[in-house]
């Protein structure tokens, strides 16, 4: 696999931008915000080089709107922001979920709430990425813990967006976004692009929101002779507004079904030592780096500690730890928030088993803090 790889020093934000280009992204709309600005800066330079287009919009609401518009025109499209901008985007992320328009939204998390501390990391948007919009819909959110993983997961985000016709959130954090690491860039030729499935039916038969037989009906871009309607109102299979329960319900069932049936494809994670572990550490993003260090130290001291590093945080990979829940004594969940994903872990293994390690002061969780928690609960 070393063939075609070019080693270089790269920042996480830059890796995100390069991953987007490699994934076929040809449209970016964004608004400057720390610590995500570098993604826009790189793409402003890089996109026109590959025939793509970049636009700096007047705000984040306009940015996500332009991204959805570009996706309707057939482009693979992305925006990038941080907490305050992510909050502003929520209504239109819901629109993308409702209308099943594929797009990628990058949130490089910074310390909040409000303006918080723009240059400090946080993992405070975990629940916002799941429940930030109004109403119910599934979502996919990916969370990288290194520069290389940022590139890879950006590519995955575009694949999932097209494969499942859904907005996909790439949940980075300030550490991953601003950190520079040596990475080996993959040869672009080795990256498989996800082709959007076209339709084989003539325009008059085309149903852009057909509920059967496929879970993901093909989306034909505007301007190609298939004239249809898109609305954020509940709609029938042709896209026309409806209040009929027999049209709303099958749609609702399908948008959940299309994700639920494909968990084996969507859930990305690394794990080791879960089989005989008494204590399990579940971590993601920058915190997973401290967790890795702490686990290695604990194992050196003879503790039976397993590690589950989540790359897909939504949908939550509950099924991965479900089978081990009985046997595990404790599950340690370190997060740079007051315990957001810990809630999901508690739902699977039971509240009494979960030990949280939390920091919301803008500093990374230190390995020693995680180690202390592991040791406190393993005799």
């Amino acid at each position, binding site marked *: 696999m070393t063939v075609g790889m070019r080693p270089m020093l790269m920042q996480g934000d830059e890796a995100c931008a390069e991953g987007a280009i490699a994934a076929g992204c040809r*449209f970016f709309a964004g608004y400057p915000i720390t610590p995500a600005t570098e993604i826009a800066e790189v793409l402003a330079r890089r996109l*026109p080089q590959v025939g793509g287009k970049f636009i700096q919009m007047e705000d984040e609401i306009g940015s996500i*709107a*332009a991204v959805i518009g*570009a996706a309707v025109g057939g482009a693979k499209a992305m925006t990038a922001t941080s907490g305050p901008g992510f909050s502003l985007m929520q209504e239109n992320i819901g629109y993308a979920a409702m209308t099943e328009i594929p797009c990628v939204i990058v949130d490089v998390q910074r310390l909040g709430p409000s303006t918080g501390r723009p240059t400090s990391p946080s993992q405070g948007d975990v629940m916002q990425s799941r429940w930030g919009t109004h109403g119910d819909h599934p979502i996919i959110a990916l969370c990288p813990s290194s520069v290389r993983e940022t590139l890879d997961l950006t590519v995955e985000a575009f694949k999932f967006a097209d494969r499942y016709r859904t907005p996909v959130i790439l949940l980075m954090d300030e550490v991953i976004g601003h950190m520079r690491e040596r990475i080996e860039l993959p040869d672009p030729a080795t990256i498989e692009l996800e082709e959007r499935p076209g339709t084989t039916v003539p325009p008059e038969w085309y149903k852009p929101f057909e509920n059967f037989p496929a879970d993901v009906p093909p989306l034909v871009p505007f301007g190609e002779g298939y*004239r249809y*309607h898109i609305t954020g109102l509940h709609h029938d299979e042709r896209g026309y507004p409806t209040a009929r329960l027999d049209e709303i319900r099958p749609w609702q069932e399908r948008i959940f079904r299309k994700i639920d049936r494909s968990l084996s494809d969507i859930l990305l994670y690394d794990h080791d030592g879960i089989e005989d572990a008494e204590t399990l550490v579940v971590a993601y993003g920058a915190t997973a780096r401290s967790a890795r260090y702490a686990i290695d130290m604990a194992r050196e001291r003879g503790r039976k500690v397993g590690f589950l590093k989540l790359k897909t945080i939504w949908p939550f990979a509950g099924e991965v730890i479900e089978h081990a829940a009985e046997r595990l004594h404790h599950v340690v969940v370190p997060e740079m928030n007051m315990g957001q994903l810990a809630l999901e872990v508690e739902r699977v293994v039971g509240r009494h088993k979960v030990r949280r390690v939390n920091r919301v002061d803008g500093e990374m969780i230190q390995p020693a803090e995680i180690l202390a928690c592991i040791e406190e609960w393993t005799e």
Partner: protein
Amino acid sequence: MTGQPHESRLHERYLRHSKKFPNVWCAGCGIGIVLGAIIRAVDGLQLDKSDVALLSGIGCTGRMPVYVDFNTMHTTHGRALAFATGLKMVRPEMKVIVVMGDGDALAIGGNHFIHAARRNIGLTAIVVNNATYGMTGGQYSPTTPIDARATTAPYGHIEQPFPIAELASTAGAAFVARSTVYHVQELEKYIAQAITKDGFSVVEAVSYCHTTLGRFNRWGTAPDMMRALKEQSTTRKRAEGMSEEEKQGKIVRGVFVDRDIPEYTRLYDQIIERAQQEAA
């Protein structure tokens, strides 16, 4: 009378028959007249329906696209121009028309409106100015006249209205015109000019809401208010000779701006060229 058969052919050709009619608008509403003007303008320009996109935001005017056989998109409140910006950038060959109400375009979407104009991106923005939020029942909007009563201005309105055409002109649009739903042929002509214009073009179509504002303010029935559009409006040319007092309360119709300035997506093509040259 000779227009009658042609008219029905247009309905046949441009309205979606798979969509259940009647439409959502009140009897006597002018929004349907604007839709008719758009259809006739597109037909007159002999555009391919597949090359036309009609986008809208939320509100009474927001319901317009669903009825017509173009590429249609009913977006979120105030954001239609931003959605259209993304679409136009990746499909610059398409004619992208955006219909909005006054609340949609100038209150919640005011920022997108002035920036789309400043950018001079080749979109056609048609603002149906009914001077209120009709769908939610008649609250005051950015174009409600001073002293008018609205459900949220029960003692009279105290804010100045935005002059839409003047605002668009100042913000940098390439083409700006204003007419009313009484002056149907003029409206159609302006819409056709706006669609043809290579740049950001705005047509304000005045169409006061008789169901809400008209009723609250005793402006009369729908026909009365239609007549008022005729009587209260004047052309730009005639307005030039009027004193400020005479112009009070008048709807000034006409083309406000028609200038040739570089269109955004064409400029961006030059950026692509420059980037590729520099990279080579």
